């Protein structure tokens, strides 16, 4: 995919992080390995939980789609690298009243930015922006429509590797609304690139893309079959809108068939881990007992997320 050339410099180094689809395994591994060393930056033994790596660099969080959570994680990561952070929440309606997307980006580029972190409701927004910014500005996609959420995919891989070791041994199940999920798409690309031999998706037909098999996954409609013997269960959030769009009758029926409860979890390997990108809908896709249980690594994901984002920013800034 030509999107790949857009992300890499001529000599194969990362220039933008827009999607995990088509990125070579060595780059994904480089990010995971670098993130490892950033974990210790926030340890208690340090007074100053920062490194001066990105001192003097200006990082702009440009969020066309609201998200305090993700924006905050990026902000923390940037500040731990001693970068200056500017937060911009660009309301969709104010956009339609005047400035085009590209005009907004052009104006921001003129403000001596070094990096844009962009979240947008439409697939390919990061690509469009990357095609139009000055060459020294790096773009990190914080979520574009249903397409990609590369840093989430990476932190999920970091988590998997941390608890479960090399990917070529793993059996993983992704459960939930794949159709609308950029997180799931990024997870699938990462898992297949990093050599995970069995990636399963579990969802009702109404929440799966028609050609999902083409993405290299095994499809299950029943949770009990889909998570049998897996090393990790990657849960996806179910949004309320799905009930309104005639894809699901109710949260209750969804929970009964695809909600992860302790009983269902027993079907996975006894030491299987449970992951969730957050925020969780307790009682809809996941039972509190599982979310707070021994096998849940959900809180670690948050910590790892900061280290992974620090790694991505450092690698980009140094290229």
């Amino acid at each position, binding site marked *: 995919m030509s999107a790949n050339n857009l992300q890499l410099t001529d000599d194969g180094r990362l220039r933008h992080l827009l999607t995990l689809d088509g990125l070579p395994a060595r780059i994904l591994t480089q990010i995971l390995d670098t993130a490892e*060393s950033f974990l210790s930056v926030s340890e208690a033994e*340090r*007074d100053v939980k920062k490194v*001066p790596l990105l001192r003097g660099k200006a990082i702009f969080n440009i969020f066309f789609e609201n998200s305090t959570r993700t924006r905050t994680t990026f902000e923390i990561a940037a500040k731990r690298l001693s970068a200056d952070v500017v937060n911009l929440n660009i309301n969709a309606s104010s956009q339609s009243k005047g400035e085009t997307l590209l005009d907004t980006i052009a104006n921001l580029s003129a403000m001596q930015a070094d990096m844009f972190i962009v979240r947008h409701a439409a697939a390919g927004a990061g690509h469009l922006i990357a095609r139009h910014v000055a060459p020294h500005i790096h773009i990190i996609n914080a979520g574009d429509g249903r397409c990609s959420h590369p840093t989430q995919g990476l932190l999920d891989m970091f988590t998997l590797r941390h608890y479960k070791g090399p990917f070529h041994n793993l059996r993983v199940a992704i459960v939930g609304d794949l159709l609308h999920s950029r997180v799931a798409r990024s997870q699938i690309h990462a898992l297949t690139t990093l050599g995970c031999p069995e990636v399963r998706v579990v969802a009702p037909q109404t929440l799966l893309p028609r050609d999902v098999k083409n993405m290299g996954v095994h499809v299950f409609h029943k949770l009990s079959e889909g998570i049998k013997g897996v090393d990790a269960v990657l849960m996806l959030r179910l949004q309320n809108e799905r009930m309104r769009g005639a894809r699901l009758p109710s949260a209750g029926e969804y929970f009964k068939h695809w909600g992860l409860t302790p009983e269902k979890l027993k079907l996975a390997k006894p030491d299987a881990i449970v992951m969730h990108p957050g925020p969780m809908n307790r009682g809809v896709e996941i039972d509190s007992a599982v979310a707070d249980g021994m096998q849940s690594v959900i809180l670690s994901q948050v910590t790892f997320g900061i280290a992974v984002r620090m790694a991505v920013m450092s690698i980009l800034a140094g290229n």
Partner: protein
Amino acid sequence: MPKQLPLPEQLIDLLAEQIKPHILPECALVGIHTGGVWIMDALAERLGPDLPRGVLDIAFYRDDFSRIGLHPETKPSHLPFDVEDRNILLIDDVLFTGRTIRAAMNLLFDYGRPATIKLAVLVDRGGRELPVCADYVGLRLDLATDEHISLENNETEGLHFVMKRKP
């Protein structure tokens, strides 16, 4: 270029002799990855294996990040003791421009405020670009700008020096 490369083990013995009489209370050894850590472990055997030890990786404190980017292999820094009011003995293999030591000190200060920092190096090869000097030196060498000495470690030879010519 010296005709014969020095033997690290001998230099470590020399360093240990210099340092031993001056070991302060509340002392901690801090080695700079990778060579400094090997030396620190070897020194600790001679100075006191119970002395607290820490390791530093200065990758995130280098001053050439914007030129050469992030080093592909970075190990985590780890100081399992309180740096506050500590007498630190900073240890590295080769002292050259002094930039590594500056980065190491910046990193140390992000952990806390030490009482003192003393520097021990196995080889001081001259060529300083910053006002840094070592308190304890195993060997002083005067090398040309295109000559580079480094410490390596492997199964067969153990610790040994390697000399290279690079423009």
